[in-house]
Structure formats: structure tokens, C-alpha cells
């Protein structure tokens, strides 16, 4: 079981995602933004950070990286892909997921321990959770407010494609408290909070994030 983690220039949480992959017993495979192939991995994580400085718009330049040329069709073909924070932004910019992430409503970066509710426990990255389970992971972003038009939001709700919702105070003004979503097939998941920062006792608010990585492991082994 090989899980790739893409490093763009400006990726910051790539080492953390690689660590989380190792902790569940999978082989962690570093992928480089300039490479045009995925080195035969069974799943891919787009990590957090500020790819290319996020100077134009978060994720807008990363979308055009050579590695994305290989990733987009693979994701459309069913490869499990998880976008965390900046990775979620890249997935939206790539149109693998609908909607967009804009500046937090309070205009500040926010870093805190955040409770999420798992709204869809049937995706490639959430099958080890219970439907409705509440988990505590790290949230840290400046542009994490999820927005989409009403029709898209209604469709996401109707199709069960809201994967995670913020519990308690909405930390960034995301519409309908949405923290993460999935594509129709359930193989592509994006969320603003950071499950890879909740995988080790003593180095984060909990180990609730491990479920993402064990889920995909089980999924790939089944497939």
C-alpha cells in the first residue's frame, strides 16, 4: 500500500502527512510538483501550506503544476485523493470538487483545536468513522471560508456530499458550517481542518485524525 504526498514549493504540512501515512503502516511516497507521473501510488494526499506562496489565489497556480496533469484524470478514474487545507483549495481550483475557499469572515488567520462532525462515513477517507461521529482535529487557515452558490450547496446536501461540518462556533464563516466535501464517487475528499495533526498522542489535540488514513488503507486493500 503506497500513499503519495505531493510537495509543491511552499507546501508546509507535507512532512506531517507523510508521517501520518507511516503511522498507519502504509508506505509514504513523496511526490514532486514538477513530476508528471504518480509513481504508481494507490492514493494521493495534497497537503496544507501555501503552494507557490498562494499569491494569486490559494491553489490557483498549483492547479497547473505538472503533477496535477496526472492527478486529475486519475482522480476522475477513482484514485483516492485527499486535499487538506491548501490541498482542498487546489482540488476546488482543479474542479475536482465544487465551490471555493475565501478569506475567513473575521479576516484573521486562526489556529485552534476544532470539533467536526463526520457527515458522510462512506467515502474512501472516512469509512473508519461512524456516521455522525464527532472528532477533534487541528484547524489553521487564513482563507478557509467555504462558499458555493445555493444550487450547489443544496445538491451537496441532497447527495450526502457534505463530508464534515464544524461543530460549535463556525471558525471562518463557511456556508452551512461546511468543513469538508466529497465528490459523487466518494474517492476525492477535501477539507480545511488538518487530520494529519491529530495522529500522535502528545503532539496534537487527539488521535482522531488517524481514521482518515486507516480508512483509505482499508479501501485500497478491498479494491
Amino acid at each position: 500500500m503506497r500513499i503519495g504526498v505531493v510537495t509543491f514549493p511552499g507546501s508546509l504540512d507535507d512532512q506531517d502527512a507523510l508521517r501520518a501515512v507511516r503511522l498507519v503502516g502504509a508506505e509514504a511516497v513523496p511526490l514532486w510538483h514538477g513530476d508528471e507521473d504518480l509513481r504508481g501510488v494507490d492514493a494521493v494526499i495534497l497537503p496544507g501550506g501555501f503552494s507557490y506562496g498562494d499569491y494569486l489565489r490559494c491553489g490557483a497556480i498549483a492547479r497547473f503544476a505538472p503533477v496535477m496533469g496526472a492527478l486529475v484524470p486519475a482522480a476522475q478514474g477513482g484514485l483516492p485523493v485527499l486535499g487538506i487545507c491548501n490541498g482542498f483549495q487546489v482540488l476546488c481550483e482543479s474542479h475536482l470538487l465544487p465551490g471555493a475557499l475565501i478569506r475567513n469572515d473575521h479576516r484573521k488567520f486562526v489556529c485552534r483545536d476544532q470539533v467536526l462532525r463526520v457527515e458522510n462515513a462512506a467515502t474512501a477517507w472516512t469509512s473508519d468513522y461512524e456516521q455522525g461521529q464527532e472528532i477533534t482535529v487541528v484547524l489553521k487557515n487564513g482563507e478557509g471560508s467555504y462558499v458555493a452558490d445555493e444550487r450547489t450547496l443544496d445538491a451537496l446536501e441532497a447527495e450526502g456530499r457534505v463530508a464534515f461540518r464544524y461543530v460549535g462556533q463556525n471558525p471562518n464563516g463557511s456556508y452551512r458550517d461546511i468543513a469538508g466535501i466529497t465528490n459523487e464517487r466518494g474517492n476525492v475528499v477535501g477539507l480545511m481542518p488538518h487530520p494529519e495533526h491529530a495522529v500522535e498522542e502528545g503532539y496534537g489535540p487527539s488521535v482522531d485524525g488517524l481514521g482518515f488514513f486507516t480508512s483509505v488503507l482499508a479501501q485500497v486493500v478491498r479494491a
Partner: protein
Amino acid sequence: MSASTSQLDTVERAAASSDTPQPWAELGLGEDEYARIREILGRRPTSAELAMYSVMWSEHCSYKSSKVHLRRFGDLPAETPLGKQLAGIGENAGVIDIGQGWAVTFKVESHNHPSYVEPYQGAATGVGGIVRDIMAMGARPIAVMDPLRFGAIDHPDTQRVLPGIVAGVGGYGNCLGLPNIGGEVVFDPCYQGNPLVNALCVGALRHEDLHLAKATGTGNLVVLFGAKTGGDGIGGVSVLASETFDDEGVGKRPAVQVGDPFAEKVLIECCLDLYAAEVVEGIQDLGGAGLSCATSELASAGDGGMRVWLDRVPLRDATLRPEEVLMSESQERMMAVVTPDKLDEFMAIADRWDVEATVVGEVTDGTNLQIHWGDELIVDVPPRSVAHDGPVYERPLERPAYLDGLQADDGARLARPSTPEDLKATLLQLLASPNLCDKSWVTDQYDRYVRGNTALAMPDDAGVVRVDEETGLGVALSTDCNSRFAKLDPYAGAQLALAESYRNVATAGAIPLAVSDCLNFGSPEDPGVMWEFSEAVRGLYDGCLALGIPVTGGNVSFYNQTGETAIHPTPVVAVLGVMDDVARRTPSGWKAPGQMLYLLGRTASEFGGSTWADVVHGHLGGLPPAVELGLERELGEILVNASRDGLIDAAHDLSDGGLAIALAEGTMRYGAGARVWLDEVCERDEIDVFTALFSESAARAVVAVPRSEEVRFTDMCSARGFAHARIGVVDDELDGIELQGRFSVTLEELRHAHTGTLPAAFAH
């Protein structure tokens, strides 16, 4: 690119026109200093040379007023409790051995004045600068901290600078991918117009990866890499340009540098790949004084000369004159010395990270630093004379006349609360005060988790990060200074800052190893300020000697004053400690019901400079708490040993606001209540309850001890003869704190008082 040589002030021209008047005074040089430059060179300097000397001989770069005092630190044994230092004062940052083949390097620096002028960029580039210092030692930066000081919380200038400074620290550090694990946010009217923005970075490296800033080996190449050079941060040198040349192209450029954290992140990864490939002979960051500093320091520390082709420097602004290229403080640049056979590999690594790298010079077998612009020689100087042999002043010192009156005004007559209601109200008033209130409005704007190694961060007493994932080996860091104490007695105040920082590190469970300091003071030309400075340095020296830890580096910031009024002396002290496994670190709050709370240390009636005197009475006078470093050392050993042996589950240092605040913070951390009794302590120390709660006596901590370990713990304290008293029990059924026979305060009351202040002041 062909360099324009019209109107160029060359060495040849300088030698032939000795009487040409030069703007040395406008550049901040004294008449004697200018004369000395002429004597060194045997002619007048070229304008480029004048620019280099003026900036390298400035207070900021040369430490000319502080050097005679700082030399003292060099007399401290260059050993930590774990062994010899690997590099000490004088390098970009000191490097200390933490065992298992690992070393760490850390340093705290000021960026005060730029942050006052332009809060966001000033604070951001303060972070960027200290991170490059750490990179230049061959280390991977692993965490940052930011001790910040502002004027009164409701002053308009605080409203102007604080949001920008906090956003700048966060904006740069967050984008750089370094966890911010602590620091300080302090308010005092003395900082109005002079906010203090200090920045600390810590990095980790294997022993064999240590790199030093020197240019050796004739024929080796000098490579400038990173961002292009622009017109930012040129500051005072534009005087020179506008006087010597026509005004065109010089114009208004920002005096404060502009940061690009993305460029720095890429530069970090690029540098680490270069080190790993062993293609770097010597390395230097570009910070204050830009290329002037980097070239002269590299050449000065080497064994030969250096030739630089300045017109090869990649520019953002093609109109820059050579003097400006030399002075520019454009950020995110580094300079490396590379052997010719490794150049291709060096360039390939830089290219992989899209980092621009350019050979701009070479090491020569000569003695001088020679800088060319096109075909012309514009600088020809002995590098040591620029970088290391600047002027040194013994400024006059004089104990300020007001000090006797200030110390005599001991506040004995200040009304003290006595009824239970008044004691409770005092607790809540202090908890809500700007310096003791919850700082999460600030610290939540910083990423404390990135890299996944943070074991403790705000609001715990110290920040703790893992260095080695295999073993859990890691470091703890704290920065502290109570400048009100230092105002009353700079010698004791500096020692109290050291003691608090040392105590905080030990409280987390780490063995304190080394000190870095950032000495923020007023004008060195004021004999009173200079006296405060020398007292603070003397206090730190004596303190480090007593605690057995070296000063491995630091920074001095003078001229923090408005008109005649200087800031309080503010010697910020950072202590770094090590622990074998950071998973065992001690948090500052209690969770487990039934654990016993012990107060370690004795309490005397010490309210000089206290938070209570400040918040309740607006009073500053008397003497600060007594310093007993022997006791601090004992306390530190107890805290570290108890943590290692599993005898304590929580520990909180007692400092600002005393025991009352420590109990409140320990309770609020995880929400478990505490039942507390103080009668025995009052009887033993012959004090009243008010003093027990709010006095700021040093060398104290409160710890939570599991019942099963109580005997072992008290035996350990008794064996060392260290004062300890059982003052309470953790009770998770209890809502808040019950001080038996006095008052109860609920968690909601505590949190309400504690958390409202900063949002009310700044969230609009």
C-alpha cells in the same frame, strides 16, 4: 548586464581627490570615525566604501557602545550542563550539544524600530531575519517565538501597531511553516512610540552538519542566492546617493524591508538540500547591511581576500547605484562559498527549488575585499576593518538620580484587600488586566502545530518541540522579562528575567542548558541608560555563573526612547532546555481528580514592581523581589527530576500576579477545579492570605502530585531541604477554585474575566 560607470566614485578617483567633501555626518559617522576610515585606507573612502563603513560601524551592526560590557559573557565557561558548546558568541548563533549526536542553535533578536514605522513588514522581516541566522549555522529551523511589548492597551498608537505586528509575525511565520510556540505580549506605557518586537528562532542539526560563516580557499566561488536585490531597506544610505548623484532613480523607497515568506520557505529547503549534498564550504545570511555585511564578514573570518563583481548581482530595480546594491536589505538572500568543482551540483539544487543563484565573486589570496562595478574598482578595503575592528566606546555611566526616590517609594501604604469579597475581586481584576489576561486573540493567529513536533505551546509556561522523532529528544524554550523589576533595579531585574525563564523551562520538565538575550534599552548616550545597561549585563553574567549556563548569543537594541524618555530597561532572556523524551513534558494545568497541589518555595511580602501594585494602584516603586539563584537551581532540579520520575502531572511557575494567578491558570487550562487552603503556608512564612495569594516572590512553583507518588515527592523535597507545603487538591466535581474559609470562584467567573480583555480592545 553592462554596468553604467558614469559618475562612478572609484578607488582611483578617491585617491586623486582627497579633499572632496563627503556626507559622513549624514550617514551617522562621527568626525573621529571618518578620520579613522581615512587613516585605515590612506586616502578618502569611495562613496561605496563610506556607505559600507557607515552601516557596519553603526550601533546596530558594530555593538560599539555595548561591546565593552558584552565581553563579560565571553568569560563565562563555554559549557552547558551537557558539555562543551559547539559554537559560541560571535557566530550567527550559538550552537549547543543536546546529546545523541544532535545539536541545537537558537537566538533572539530585535526588530523594534522597523516595526514601529511599518508594523506588518517590520515584524514579518524580524521573523525572516532570525530564521536565516539559524539556517546559516547549517540547522533546520524548527520553531519560532515572539516576545512583543506595546504601550498602554488603550493608547491609539497601540491600536495602530499591535494588529499589524501580530499579523506580520503570523503572516510570515505561518507561511514559512514554522510553529510559533510561545513568547510574550506585554503592555506598558513606557513602550508607547517604542514597541519592542523581538523574535526568536531555534534550529536543529546533526553535529557534523555545523556550518560557519567564513570564506576560505583561494579560487573558491562566492554565490549569492535567493531573492533579487531591490531598493528596499536602503534607509539612510539614500542620503549618499542623493548627494553624490542626481536624484533620478533614487526617489522615495521604503526604508523598511518587505518580506516574502514563500521565498524564504523555498530558500530553507534549498539550503538544507545544499548542506545535505555537501556542496557548501561557508555560508552567511544577508540581513542588516546586506551585501556589505555578508561580504566583509565572510572575508574577515576567512584566511584570504575576496573579489566581488557587484554588477552581477541580480536586481529587481536596474536603476540601483552600486552603493545601494551594497546597502540594500532586500530579504530572503543568502551567500555561500563553493568550490569550483561543486558549482554545477550547487546550481542544479538551486534550480530544482527555482532559486536564482549567481556567482558574484571569488576568494583570493590577497588581503583585501575588492568590489568591482563593471571595469572599475569601487571598494578596496581590509575586510576586518569593516566587519570586526569597528570603533569601541566606553560610554559614561551614571546611576540615575531618581532611583533612590523610586526605591524608597515602596508602596507599604497601598491599601490591601482584606475581606474575602475584596480578595476575590482582586483576583478577577488581575486576571482581566492586559498583562495577565488570556492572549489567545494573539496566539491563535499563529500556527503552533506545523511540522507535527509541538508538545507544548501557548499558554503553557514553555514551548516544547521534538527534535528526534525516533527517541522523542527535544527542547523547551521560554522568553521572559519583567521590565518593571528592571526599572527598579536593573541588576536584579535582569536576574529575575533569567530566573523566570530558567524556571519556566524546568517547569516543563527540561534541563536548562543555555541563554540567548535581547537587550532592549534607551539611548547609550544617556549615562543613566548606559548604567542600567551595564547593571543588567552584570546581573546576567553573575546569574548565568550561578546557574551554570552560558550565554550563547543575542542582540542589543539601543535608542528605544521618545525624546528624553527611555523605555524601562528590558533585558529579554530566552533559556533553552533539553529533555530526553518530550512526550514526558509537564503541562501547566491539572486534570486528574484527587491529585495533591503543592506549593514549592517560600513566600515573603514582595510587592515592589508587582502586577497588583500596577493594576490596582498604578504604582511602581520599592525594590523587586529578592533573587536567590541557589534556590532557583534547587527548584529546577526538583521539577526536572520529579517530571522524569513521574512524580508530578502538572507544574506551573509562579511569577506575575503570584500564586492566585497560577492557581487560576492551572484550573482554567483543562477545567478541573481546585480546593485550596493556605493557613499552613501563612503560618510558616508569617504572612497574611493576601500576601500568600499575590506576592511575587521568586523561586516558587505549584505542582500537582498523584496521591501514589506523594511520599516519594515530599521525601525528595525534604532530602534537599526545599520548602514545600500541601495547599490543595484537584477536584473535577468542583466548579472553579474554593479557597477554604475565604471565597469560591467559578470557572465561568475566571474565564469570563480572563478572556474578554484582548477581544474587547482589538476585535473590531
